[in-house]
Structure formats: structure tokens, C-alpha cells
């Protein structure tokens, strides 16, 4: 129905006074919810103290923040792994508005590939340091290529034919592929978690800061994540292909009109996301010394929570979200008990959805505002 008035397009969010209050409350409410755990346990550690050992029949209580610091160290390193996976989710969602359910399982395939390559390259517990580093770099490169190609393949086979179809169809296809990949993992290494060699002695402390032992695993996680994130950000911001990605994310039709090969750009996005997931898979295998065919599903949910928390479509947000979720997990593991950690993380996801669906760093959109 056509109107004859030339009123401006109404703002996407109603200009209701309460809405402004809700938005303010939403952002600070979320930050308060996130900070609640560390602050509470920090204060509790300082005042009530925590049991740090047993010497000659007496409980040794400490009253400092080093246990909290330890939680943070563990959390940030785990979070670095989730950040790498979350970037894949956020890139894909930003460009084609699809939750790539199979992304977590691509991460799992990355882990499995890495562990398989260790066997092929002969990396074991007795390999010398130089051989180990060389072997791991080769593993990293090959794994990233494998998972990147896998992601591109999935996009080509499953998502591209359904680009015009309702969103539900693509989502279901993603779930279907997730199941297929899980079955591949199941046949590859069986149904129970499999212990793998602790190649880099991941729990060995390298140095100590303020009573918190900094283990090799933490350094590994950040040594892989930081360069990759920088490289990706540089790529998106400076190169032509990166500009094409940003343009397609903003408006695919206009990008096509400007001469950008949208199909190739989307494939490139999937390639980059898959490569990061592969890197995360290798780090996970080295860090946890344990792989499982179902790990991708779990990691995928956590990483998606992280991406949403940071603001979907936003790479910096994905990294921030990943780190935050990692810390929440570590605190929950250590203080509440590991059996409740998953419920806590999902509780936070629901809190985000209620308080601030666009996440911490996200922009307001018509749908999710």
C-alpha cells in the first residue's frame, strides 16, 4: 500500500523512554553480571582465604589473589582457543547471516588431523626440542589447510545452493553436516575421549608472576592466537580482498553491483574461519592432551556464546567474548565445580540474550536490538 506522506523512515528501535533505560541497564547489567564472579571470589579469597595445601597435618590457608590469578591464567588461555573458533562463527554470520553449526566440528576435525599428523611425522614424547617445534609448525600449516578447505567445501556443497532459501533450510543443513563430521570423528577415534601424548609438557611452569605459575600451555595458546588475530585483522583492514569481505558483510547486493565477486568472497571468509578453527584444534590437542569426537559440538556452543557476547559480526568482539567466557569457565570449574560450568556458561548466554542481544561491542541491528 503506498502512502503519500514523505515521513522519514522511523528509527529501528522505538523512541520509548523506557527503552533508553533498558539499553543502559542492559549494557551495565551485563558487565555487572560478568564481573560478579571474579569480584565475589576475589573478595572471598582475600577475606576468608582458600586452602592451599596441607603441611604436617595442618591446613594451610592463603589470603592473597594468586588463586584468582591462577583462574584467570587458565581462563584466558582456554579463552584464546575459544576466541579462534569464535572468529570463524562471527565472520560467517557477519557475511551471510548463518550460524555455521558445523564450525565446531571442523575444529574437532582439526584436532584429529593434528594428532594424526603427530603420528605420521613421528612426534613423540622423546622428540628433541628442535624437531618438536619444526614438526608442530608443519602440523599447524597442514592442519590449517585441511580445515580451511573443509570449511570451503561445506560452504560450496551445502550452503551455496540454499542461499536463496529460507534461513531454516541452511541452518538445518549446517546441523546435518555437523552430524556427518561427528560421525567421521566417531569412526576415526571411537566414542570415548582419547588421551594423546603430552608433547610440550603443557603443565610445566615456565615462570611465576605473583604466585601464579605461568604454564607452557598458556604461552602456547597466546603465541598462536595473537599473531593469527593480528594477521587476520591486518588482512581484513588493508587488503583488497578484506575490503571486499567488509563490503559484502554490509550489503551483498551493493557489493555485487560494485563488481565484487561475492561468491569468491564468501568462500574466502569460510577459508579463513576454517583455518583459524584448525589452529585452535592443534592448540586444543596440545593443551588438553585429550581429543573426543564430541568436543567440537561443545566447543562450538561455547565459541558461539563468545561470539554473541562480543557482538556478532565483530572480530574484536569475538576475541573479547572468547577470553571472557574462558575466564568464566575457569572460575566456575575451580569454585563451583566442573559439573556446573556448562550450565553457568549457558546461563550467561541467556542473560546476554535478555539484557543485550547485540553483545558488548556489537552495533544495534533491527532484528537483534
Amino acid at each position: 500500500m503506498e502512502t503519500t506522506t514523505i515521513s522519514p523512515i522511523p528509527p529501528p528501535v522505538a523512541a520509548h523512554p523506557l527503552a533508553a533505560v533498558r539499553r543502559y541497564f542492559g549494557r551495565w547489567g551485563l558487565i555487572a553480571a560478568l564481573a560478579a564472579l571474579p569480584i565475589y571470589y576475589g573478595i572471598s579469597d582475600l577475606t576468608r582465604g582458600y586452602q592451599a595445601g596441607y603441611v604436617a597435618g595442618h591446613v594451610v590457608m592463603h589470603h592473597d589473589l594468586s588463586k584468582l590469578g591462577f583462574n584467570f591464567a587458565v581462563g584466558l588461555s582456554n579463552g584464546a582457543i575459544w576466541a579462534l573458533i569464535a572468529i570463524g562463527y562471527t565472520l560467517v554470520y557477519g557475511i551471510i547471516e548463518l550460524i555455521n553449526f558445523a564450525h565446531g566440528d571442523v575444529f574437532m576435525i582439526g584436532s584429529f588431523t593434528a594428532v594424526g599428523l603427530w603420528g605420521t611425522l613421528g612426534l613423540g614424547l622423546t622428540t628433541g626440542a628442535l624437531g618438536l617445534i619444526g614438526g608442530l609448525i608443519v602440523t599447524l600449516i597442514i592442519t590449517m589447510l585441511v580445515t580451511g578447505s573443509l570449511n570451503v567445501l561445506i560452504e560450496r556443497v551445502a550452503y551455496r545452493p540454499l542461499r536463496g532459501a529460507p534461513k531454516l533450510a541452511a541452518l538445518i543443513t549446517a546441523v546435518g553436516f555437523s552430524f556427518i563430521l561427528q560421525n567421521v570423528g566417531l569412526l576415526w577415534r571411537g566414542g570415548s575421549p582419547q588421551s594423546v601424548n603430552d608433547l610440550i609438557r603443557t603443565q610445566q611452569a615456565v615462570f611465576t608472576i605473583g604466585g601464579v605459575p605461568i604454564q607452557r600451555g598458556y604461552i602456547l595458546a597466546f603465541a598462536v592466537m595473537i599473531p593469527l588475530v593480528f594477521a587476520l585483522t591486518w588482512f581484513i583492514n588493508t587488503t583488497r580482498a578484506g575490503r571486499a569481505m567488509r563490503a559484502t558483510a554490509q550489503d551483498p547486493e551493493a557489493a555485487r553491483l560494485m563488481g565484487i565477486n561475492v561468491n569468491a568472497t564468501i568462500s574466502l571468509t569460510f577459508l579463513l574461519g576454517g583455518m583459524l578453527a584448525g589452529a585452535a584444534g592443534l592448540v586444543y590437542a596440545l593443551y588438553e592432551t585429550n581429543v573426543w569426537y564430541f568436543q567440537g559440538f561443545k566447543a562450538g556452543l561455547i565459541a558461539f556464546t563468545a561470539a554473541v557476547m562480543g557482538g556478532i559480526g565483530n572480530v574484536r568482539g569475538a576475541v573479547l567474548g572468547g577470553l571472557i567466557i574462558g575466564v568464566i569457565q575457569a572460575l566456575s570449574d575451580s569454585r563451583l565445580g566442573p559439573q556446573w560450568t556448562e550450565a553457568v556458561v549457558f546461563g550467561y548466554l541467556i542473560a546476554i540474550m535478555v539484557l543485550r542481544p547485540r553483545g558488548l561491542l556489537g552495533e544495534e541491528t533491527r532484528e537483534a536490538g
Partner: protein
Amino acid sequence: MSELRALLREWRAAAGKRLPPWSSRALAGFFIVIGIVLPFGFGSASGFMNATIIALAYAVMSLGLNIVVGFAGLLDLGYVAFYALGAYSLGWFGSGFFFKAQVHVLVSKVASTLPGVHLNFILILIAAALICAAAGAVIGLPTLRLRGDYIAIVTLAFGEIIGDVAVNGQSVHVGGGMTLTAGNLGISAVDAPYFPGIGSFGLLDLRPWYWLIFAILLVVLFVNLRLRDSRLGRAWVALREDEVAAVSMGIPLVKTKLLAYAIGAAFGGMSGAFFGTYYTEVNAGQFQFGFSIFILAMVIIGGLGSIWGAVVGGMVLGYINNYLIPDVLNTLPSKLGFNFQLTEVEFGIFGFLLVIMMVLRPQGLIPERRRRLELTAEIAPADAQLAEAPGTPGGAA
């Protein structure tokens, strides 16, 4: 190909015109009779009967999810939560789990001597439906302002939380030495259904179980058919198609959406209670995310939004999962020279089915009329008045 389809449609329409008006009712009655006498054709405890009972229970569950995802268009990926709550309703109110209580209502003589809460199965069905309806409304609340993908994630999160509570409920004490759930140990030896006059169902004769679930299916089908053609059903479809337009036409958004969640959940709970008593135990390991996808696959493969599609989808996947793959075809790969059994690739087969369905026939086996219009270019002559303006973003198949 489309000419052949048009020809078939014409024949069907012509044949339909020649039948008397009561023909569809008679046909329905005929199939109900077939359903009732079916067990007499098979062994009373054969693998086929077992698979049929499970398939019918899945059909009930997929009818429930069909209301949420199909009618109201709310993508719910956490439906396993209602299966869990339904099964636990049975575990709480139909077994010796709460051993400090001594509540017996219309149960068999044997069960009335046992400690715990023992209610008649019909009462438990009602309790399961009510509990799940309440839970459905609670789960639906945060999703009211969100759109499709986010609803999926939030419902998935709720499903996982309920799964966690099921596992960890073992350590949640509710007083008197009793815990909330039995986690992975499972609430075992739950009551079998008991009807005064018929007695308690045994574990060896599957026929009473079959008739029970068949009766439940008929009731749920009836409710679904009435809902679809009711004001509420039409409100759901309106919300699904265009929320803004629906709201501006006066449809109460919150109430309609919450009712969709609640009613869909109630059916899931009823089916969950039946599963709990049929499997004779309620074990937290039964409530995994994969189950939600399984039920969603039934609805989608059957045809989103279509009642008969949900039934067919539920039964087909139930048979494939519980009969075809483990019993009939399990040794097929080894016969072909491979080193694995078919049950090991069950996951993959389901994933493959989902992908194939979405790529080839996204409207499902028995599409709902509107969906067929959306997703394909066909417009049957009888549906001409339902046709929307050309240029809908369909044409995927």
C-alpha cells in the same frame, strides 16, 4: 516431470470429486481399525512391535515440536528438555525414587505396597503435560524479542541446561536423603502403566503398550487438528509469516507465542513420560542434544507445519533408527566388505538425510500447503486462492 505431477493431481482431484462426502471420515476410521488390530499380525514382543511403539511415541513428540517450529515458526533446538521433564515426571511420580513419601493413587496392588510416589499413569501423563507446559512458557519468555537464529541458540542453551540439571541432580538434595534426579545411575524399575480391570503392563507382552501409545497418538492428533483450524492455530501461522503485520492486526504476540511453546512442550512431555515407563528407567544419558536434532529432523523431513507430515516423519525416522539400521541393515556394510556396522554411522546417515532433504526437497515429504507454495513454484488449482503474490523468495528446489 511436472506434467506427470499435474496429471496425477488432476486424477486425484477427479477421483476425489466422485467419492461421497463421508469418504474421508470412513477412511480415517478404517485406518484406526487397522492400527488397532495391527499387533495381532506380529509376535507379541518382536523387534518390529518394539520399533512400532517407539515410532508412534516419536510421532507424538514430533507433533509437539511441529506446533512450535511448524505452526508458530519458532526454531526450538532444545526440545530434549521436554522429553527429559516428561520422563522425570514419570520417575518422580511413578517409582520408588522419593522413598520417604508414601503416596498411592490408583495403582496396582504390588505398587501400593512400595515406598515412594506412585500415581496412575494417566495422572502422570497429565502431570507431565502441565509441568512441561510451564517449562515451555518459561523457556519461551527470553526468546520473545529475538529473531530466528537467536531463538535457536537460546532454546539450545536451555536444553543443555536441563540436561546438566538431569546429570547433576544426583547431588542436589531435596531433603530426607532424597536427591532431585539419579543422574547417570538412572531411576530404574519405574512403574508400568496400570489400569483397573486390565492390570499392570508386563515387559514381555508389548501389545498393551502399543494400544496405549496408539490411543495417546490419536488424542494428540485430534487436538492438533482442532488447533490447526482454530483461531489460535491461525494466529500462529500469521505470526510465522509476518510478525509485524500480525501484531498490527491485533494478535497478542506474547500470549500466542507462549501458548505455542507451552502446548508443544506438553505433547513432548506426554511422550517423554511414555518413553520413561517403556524403557523402565530414566537415565540422564538419554537426554542429549542429538535427540533435539532427531525430533527436528522428523518434523522437517515430514514437512514443516504439516500434521500428517510430522506423524509420517516421526514414524519413518523412528523405524529407520530403531529397526532398519540396528536390526535389518546392520550387517550390510560387513556383507559389502567393510569393517564397520551400520549403527556406527547412524549419526552420519541422519546428517546426510537432513542435508539431502534440505537441498532436494525442503518442503518435506508431506508439505503444508503454504510451505509448498513458498518453496516450490507449484500451485495446485485447489490452492489458487491461497497463492501469494509471485516473487516470493522460494524456488530453492
